[in-house]
């Protein structure tokens, strides 16, 4: 019996070694360790043995069973690992093929500039105001110190709807409206971005529709030096920390004194180049101290309150900052233009 068991062990282990897949291995397990297998059979025949031999053979039978089971488990692990390796090999891909593109859009360049300017002024404590694009003659002109028959009031530039309704030619009416809203007895710090219209034929530098951002600060004791300070801070944030500004006298009906504001050219660093027409300076804004007539018409007492206003063309800023050469690009919305200004 002992011989038979040892032979069985050798035979079973031989079969385990020969099994080359999990199914074959399972078959070996059933064949040798199953209920109908030879070891069970040996154990069943134990009754014929002497009481001395029984425990010895029983122990041996268990050892043989364990040895076979261990061999089976080891082989199973080996086979499973091989199977996994084979599967992983099959699953290999070409990592050099291109990835699946993620579709992203982006903001219009004018929106980027507007939001950048808005954020700069929000940081300086200004609020953002809006107003109608179809304006009354009163708010677009009269409330801004441009009465009928004023020489600066050129009808040719304005799209009229009726004699008293028009497409606003500037965002300044929002200032006049805000001053009324604030009732003449509160300080105002606001900017108003918006679309404006002029009777111009569209070409590389003119557009019948364009975008302005104007600002207004009204308080007690506002000085022209404050205007310089605020605009210097703004220009440096928008165009670079090493920029300088300068003021040149100009004329706007709603401000007096009125100035044009230049910033040092960033292309040549103020040395002079084609972009700045060899002056080293680039005009970016119009500004001035709010005219007493405008204050008075909007309910502010010019003896008590003073203020400054400024305005800029967003397209112009965008053209300067990004070197855009034709204002029409902003409105034809060519995807090849739009996607240049953000990572798509």
């Amino acid at each position, binding site marked *: 019996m002992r011989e038979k068991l040892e032979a069985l062990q050798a035979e079973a282990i031989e079969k385990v070694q020969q099994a080359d897949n999990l199914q074959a291995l399972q078959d070996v397990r059933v064949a040798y360790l199953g209920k109908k297998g030879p070891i069970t059979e040996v154990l069943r025949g134990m009754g014929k043995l002497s009481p001395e031999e029984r425990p010895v053979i029983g122990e041996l039978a268990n050892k043989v069973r364990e040895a076979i089971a261990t061999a089976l488990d080891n082989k199973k692990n080996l086979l499973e690992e091989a199977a996994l390796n084979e599967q992983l090999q099959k699953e290999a891909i070409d990592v050099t093929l291109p990835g*699946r*593109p993620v579709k*992203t*859009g*982006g*903001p*219009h360049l004018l*929106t980027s500039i507007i939001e950048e300017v808005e954020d700069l002024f*929000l*940081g300086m*404590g*200004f*609020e*953002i105001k809006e107003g109608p*694009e179809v304006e*009354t003659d009163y708010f677009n002109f009269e409330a801004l110190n441009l009465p009928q028959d004023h*020489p*600066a009031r050129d*009808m040719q530039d304005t*799209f*009229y*709807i*009726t004699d008293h*309704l028009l*497409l606003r030619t500037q965002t300044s009416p929002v200032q006049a409206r805000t001053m009324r809203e604030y009732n003449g007895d509160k*300080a105002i*710090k606001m900017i108003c971005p918006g679309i404006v*219209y002029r*009777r111009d034929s569209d070409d590389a530098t003119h557009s*019948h*529709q364009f975008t302005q951002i104007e600002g207004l*600060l009204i308080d007690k*004791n506002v*000085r*022209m*030096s*404050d205007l*310089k*300070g605020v605009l210097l*801070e703004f220009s440096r944030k928008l165009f670079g920390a090493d920029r300088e500004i*300068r*003021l040149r*006298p100009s*004329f706007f009906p709603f401000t*007096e*004194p009125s*100035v*044009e504001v230049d910033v040092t050219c960033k292309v040549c660093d103020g040395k002079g180049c084609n972009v700045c027409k060899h002056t080293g300076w680039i005009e970016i804004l119009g500004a001035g*101290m709010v005219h*007493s007539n405008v204050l008075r018409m909007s309910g502010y007492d010019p003896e008590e309150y003073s203020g400054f206003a400024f305005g800029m063309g967003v397209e112009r800023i965008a053209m300067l900052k990004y070197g855009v050469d034709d204002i029409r690009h*902003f*409105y*034809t*919305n*060519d*995807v*090849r233009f*739009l*996607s240049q200004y953000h990572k*798509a």
Partner: protein
Amino acid sequence: MFVSLNWLKQYVNIDNSTPEELAERITRSGIEVEGIERIAPESTNVVVGYVESCEQHPNADKLNLCQINVGTETYQIICGAPNIAQGQKIAAALPGARLPGGMKIKKAKLRGVESHGMVCSLQELGIDEKFVPKEFAEGIFVFPEDAEVGTPVAELLNLDDVILELGLTPNRADAMSMLGVAYEVAAILNKEVNLPEEAYPTSNSKAADFVQVKVEDNELNPYYGAYVIENVKIAPSPLWMRNYLMAAGIRPINNVVDITNYVLLVYGQPLHAFDYDKVATKEIVVRTANEGETMQTLDDQERTLTGDELVITNGKEPIALAGVMGGANSEVTNQTTTVLLEAAYFDSRAIRRSSKHHNLRSEASSRYEKGIDPNRVKKAGAYAARLLAEYAGGAVAEGVVEFDELDRQEKKVELDTASVNARLGTTISDDEIASILTRLQFGFEQDNSQFAVSIPTRRGDISLFEDMLEEIARIYGYDNIPYTLPEGEAFAGKLTTKQYLKRQLKQYLQGAGLMETITYSLTSKARTEMLVSPEVKEQSVHAVALKMPMSEEHSHLRISLLPELVDTLSYNVARKQDNLGYFEFGRIFLSEEEQTTEQPTETARLAGAITGTWTEQPWQQEKKPVDFYVVKGIVEGIFAQLDLEPVFQQAQVDGYHPGRTATVSHNGRAVGVVGQLHPTVQKAYDLKETYVFDLDVAYLIDQYKEEPSFRTVPRHPSVTRDIALVVDEAAHAGDIQRTIKEAGGELVQQVQIFDVYQGEHMEAGKKSIAYTVLYQDPTRTLTDEEVEASYNSIMEAVKAAHGAELRS
């Protein structure tokens, strides 16, 4: 305004500045110098020559062979100009000469004969063709007889002059004259102004014997002065005068006309010379025109008057459109012997009206329109009389026939040093202010830091404290004002919720793959009738029309963003860009009136348009075109950004695909549309399948409720039930979904569709839709009984409302 520096030198000393320095200082102090032009920087070796002989070239009909004496030598020069003749004094460019434009003069052979130079026209010497006198326009220039042979022509023709081009803002009408510019430059450089001598000799005649002046409207014409000059000999004006006129951009004509133009440029005071004999009636009557009256102006145009214009008449008919242009019937010609010279003050509004109505701008009208100096009218008249006597041989009759009710008072402005400094943020002293006023040549009385300033009438733009503030600031120098920050109360700058949400929605759409666009608000009438969202159309609104559009393309304000947005797709597709997703956040303009008289409603819309492939992976042969559900998903996302729930309903909308379009509503209010463009619209725009959406974003943003508190994460488990229903194939999954949600009760948190099936194993005309219903109560665990009860009421409801059966 073109300012000749050689001319300006006669009134103010500018010797210590280069033209560039001067230009820079003028610009920085108030008037922008837009250009600096040298007439002919390079003309050297061009001298006055005497044409000793002029014969036909032996081998060429149209060429002349001339012997030109330049003083030291005689040169043989071949000249093709038709107006060259023996005895003339001409401009001879000798070998080695350089002409403007870079031309070099060398010895040459023309048709076998040597030529040692060139006889020049004014154009060849650098004068703009527009300003060359007519008699020399087609040939060479001929100098007056007194020109000295051998003199460099640059001197005689003022070719070494430098011209500053001033860009004048409407307030600086004072700088539309050489004297005005001289005052400005004198203030900047701290110099004196040398004024011209105006006194003139008179004859024994008396002007009053020649003419009477009558003015009907003393407000529109407060001053009219008439001078009479006899024995005038019409001839070219002196060369120096012609040079200055050409430099200023005015073509010389004859001595009389040139003198009126020259004086206009010196004083900024328009003058007009009539041929006295043609006036014929010994009478000048200034009146408003009669409606329908006609007259011919000097530019040979027949003009029908509206009745708004001021006209100068001879008592019978108009002889000039006052302040704008003279009449052809009284024009000075070569036959004129007696000149009636007008120096008048016309009100700016009257002149603006005539000039605008007749679309006629002249040197005169542009000055009257902006306002002239009342104290220069008589001076300019006198100076012109002096020049007519001197350069046209005229005898000036004694006296000026006048109508005079003109106010010549100077305005007063009070200011004090403290107010100036408070407003500018400066520390200017009393003495500095006094010095600035002196430099400006403004009269003033000073009491320590109090100033009472008399504003010269040439500065009509100054009447208030802040006007003086600007004068002081610009002469003091804006660079000298310090940089400070406002000292007032500090505000916290912050976007409003609406402004924040607008940015948020734009960012969401960009993240979803759409590119932002901005299109024109002005569109064509035809486009205001296209792709209008149904809820907008229902309001029976009208598009606002411009009174005088520049083109049909931009004649109306849009009432939908889509026509221009879809056009943008079309524009890009035409440029071989096939896969596009665009959105615009912009305003539409809705008027309740057919003829707009009140401000329309302006409201924000959010629209998008997508065409072509939506997802793509070429090497996997994967290419999914955009479809309805892509765009619907984007719209659902917009609602989700605002914590709102959209309801979609199949709809027939003009311009849209009848089977692939839904209206969008929220809480029972229609807020927009989503769908495929109708194939005929796609074809009109040259587009393939294109999907769009258009939402009343102003309303949606208004509906957003800020969630003040944090929503707890549910701790009790949820229960799900799947329900597979069989319904008619025409049934709408979304309608059934809504029924489930409503019938299921409060415990239903979510109903999702997980399968739609039609085909094999289904009865014809039927389809199956499967839903997952999620039940949850954040405060407790649900019981089987309550879920079962809800499930039963759902089944009853879907059967009743949609005839749905449970799929077996």
